[in-house]
């Protein structure tokens, strides 16, 4: 089985979906002739033509607005926002229109649209190319929010997202585009259902809940502390909304300790929802206070390298938090 990068898995998913469904198309900045600034659409313009791989103007509101209109018309748009930092001009279209369409039309109209956006820091991108935006969207009923952490899931989840009748916010950990590699079967179709979380590493001492790049780091940290005798369970949330509460609580029933990790800053971050879920339904299984490890509450990921390192959660920081929680 071939080992491919995360971004290649995403490219393959779109290639397959464009081939599978003539209504599917891609729209975004530089997705066509250039093949995307992260090369996620390389070759697709030549293969499917300018009507199905559309270079848009530098206007995110338009990209999503066109996507919504096309989706209502029966198309399957895959909108690319070049960096998640730029998604805010389209926020109104996503939250007030796409998310509410099915609800306000009593199910008569649906918006089967995917909005893809690379997110996260650690790539020297500074304030405007490093943001994590998941918490804004995971608050909105009517949207699905998906973040893959490995090539297999990225391919399977993106294909499921394109086929989903609801608007899906598909956030890709861009630091992992080329860093994270994994085996993906070539000769079978992979669909990973939106919703279920995955226990990616079984353990008994404590549970780490993470997604995206931080899940990748959590696995590394778990390996580091395994040498010290700590048996850590790691859960990849994969879908943030709707979240898989049962898998989270099952893990807590087993380990009784929870560490929640995300790169986005702490306050009001997505980890608060997981912590609340555990406190509300898993309280009697807890052996320690629920712990969150997240980015500091500063306005952005700093550009200077030492400052960026200070901001970013990494395997060492996760391992240290694991040790503290295990010792409680």
């Amino acid at each position, binding site marked *: 089985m071939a080992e491919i990068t995360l971004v290649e898995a995403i490219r393959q998913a779109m290639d397959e979906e464009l081939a599978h469904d003539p209504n599917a198309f891609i729209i975004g900045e530089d997705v066509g002739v250039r093949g995307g600034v992260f090369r996620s659409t390389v070759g697709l313009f030549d293969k499917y033509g300018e009507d199905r791989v559309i270079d848009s103007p530098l206007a995110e509101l338009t990209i999503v607005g066109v996507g919504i209109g096309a989706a209502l018309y029966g198309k399957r748009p895959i909108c690319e926002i070049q960096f998640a930092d730029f998604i805010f001009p389209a926020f109104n279209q996503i939250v007030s229109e796409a998310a509410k369409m099915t609800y306000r039309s009593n199910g008569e109209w649906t918006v089967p649209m995917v909005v893809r956006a690379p997110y996260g820091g650690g790539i020297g991108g500074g304030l405007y190319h490093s943001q994590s935006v998941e918490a804004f969207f995971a608050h909105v009923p009517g949207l699905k929010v998906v973040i893959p952490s490995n090539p297999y899931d990225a391919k399977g989840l993106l294909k499921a997202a394109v086929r989903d009748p609801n608007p899906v916010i598909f956030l890709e950990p861009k630091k992992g585009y080329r860093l994270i590699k994994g085996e993906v079967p070539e000769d079978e179709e992979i669909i990973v259902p939106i919703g279920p979380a995955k226990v990616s590493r079984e353990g008994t001492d404590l549970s780490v809940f993470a997604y995206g790049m931080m899940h990748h780091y959590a696995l590394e940290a778990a390996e580091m502390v395994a040498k010290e005798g700590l048996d850590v369970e790691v859960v990849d949330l994969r879908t943030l909304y709707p979240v898989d509460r049962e898998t989270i609580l099952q893990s807590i029933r087993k380990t009784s300790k929870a560490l929640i990790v995300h790169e986005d800053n702490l306050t009001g971050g997505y980890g608060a929802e997981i912590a609340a879920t555990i406190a509300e339904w898993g*309280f*009697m*299984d*807890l*052996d320690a206070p629920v712990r969150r490890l997240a980015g500091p509450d500063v306005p952005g990921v700093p550009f200077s390298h030492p400052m960026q390192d200070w901001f970013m959660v990494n395997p060492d920081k996760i391992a240290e938090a694991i040790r503290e929680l295990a*010792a*409680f």
Partner: protein
Amino acid sequence: MPTKVIMPKLGESVVEGTVTAWMKKENEVIEEFESLLEVTTDKVTTEVPSPAAGTILKIVAPEGETVEAGTVLAWIGEPGDEIPEGEQPPAQDHEPHETPDAESITDEPVMVRPAGRDRDLGYISPVVARLARDKNVDLDKVRGTGMDSRITKKDVLAYLKDHKGEAEIPIWETPADGDLFRPTELVFGKQKPETQPSPASSAIPGETLPLSPMRKRIAEHMVLSKHTSPHVTTVMEADLSRVMAHRAAGKAEAEARGIHLTYTAYFLAAVTAGLKAVPLANSSWTDTGIRLHRQINLGMAVAMPDGGLIVPVIRGAEELSLIGLARQVNELAERARTGKLSPDEVQGGTFTLTNHGTKGSLFATPVINQPQSGILGTGMIQKRVVVIDDAIAIRPMVYLSYTFDHRILDGASADSFLAAVVDALQNWPPA
């Protein structure tokens, strides 16, 4: 000079009360009029305020003790005050504690912990608390390996593994939720059960509900009543068409005056009419003769929200109008349900009304409230087919079950009373 706290006389004929709870312990400081203890009489529970400010020097009557009104319950004064001679309770039979000297304490190896369990267990996490309860683990015996030697879930699991097979206490013998880790005598108090469970009942698995003072009094009274009076019950039915029409017409007006016009008021009015017509039904048996009561004092049974029942009394019902009765019903029922009745308000009844129809009961055989001679039960009001002048009609009907003391009344006199009640209801309003 210390001040006495005495068992108050909580009503005209209340001669004793039970100390159900002390709000303060010995040596605690209390303000004047601050609640000191809770006292229960047959049917009323009330708090007793402190008669003075000071320190509680001695509690004489422990919780659970029943004493006569006027008995000294406690002493309040300044620390060091002498409690007057002769007022002391008789010496307790337990041996006096000798104060151990410091040497003997340090010499003794810490093998057995005192019953008070003074080891600080540190932070107990929810899962440890739950495991300890579910698996009956005495956390005093578990070694803590967590932060600051706290007991972790793993410590409990390890302990359970090492102590597998040790006799587990059956779950029904452990205290309920919220009473974790407390010696049972602290949870349940030190009194011994007053009666030994019969061999038959203890052999069958189950639980014993503690008897509240009210439950006990009801039980005693019911047995007493059945022993005292030969009970006979007679049943008649009444057509409530006129009562209903009258109530429908007058309800809004009564409501405007703040009065909830209930059927109970009509039944009480009809009973009053019946008792006026047959005075023998408003009487009590005495060894010297049948005592006819001049006043009509009607008790009405009120179910309590947490079980049991209480019978507040409407005095001088013969002088009250329907609205007057309704007002009394409202007030007494409300006070009964909130536990605010005074002892005098539950005494002196000459006849009792009980409504057993709220859940659908049609007729019953109520037990007489001694020393009265009769009790009337009202069933559920339901529309039934009746024959009137050889025609079939649908009427709101109710069964009236009258239990009477056969020592006083015979079938004929009892039925005369009941017929008068029916007549009053069917021909409402009275002429």
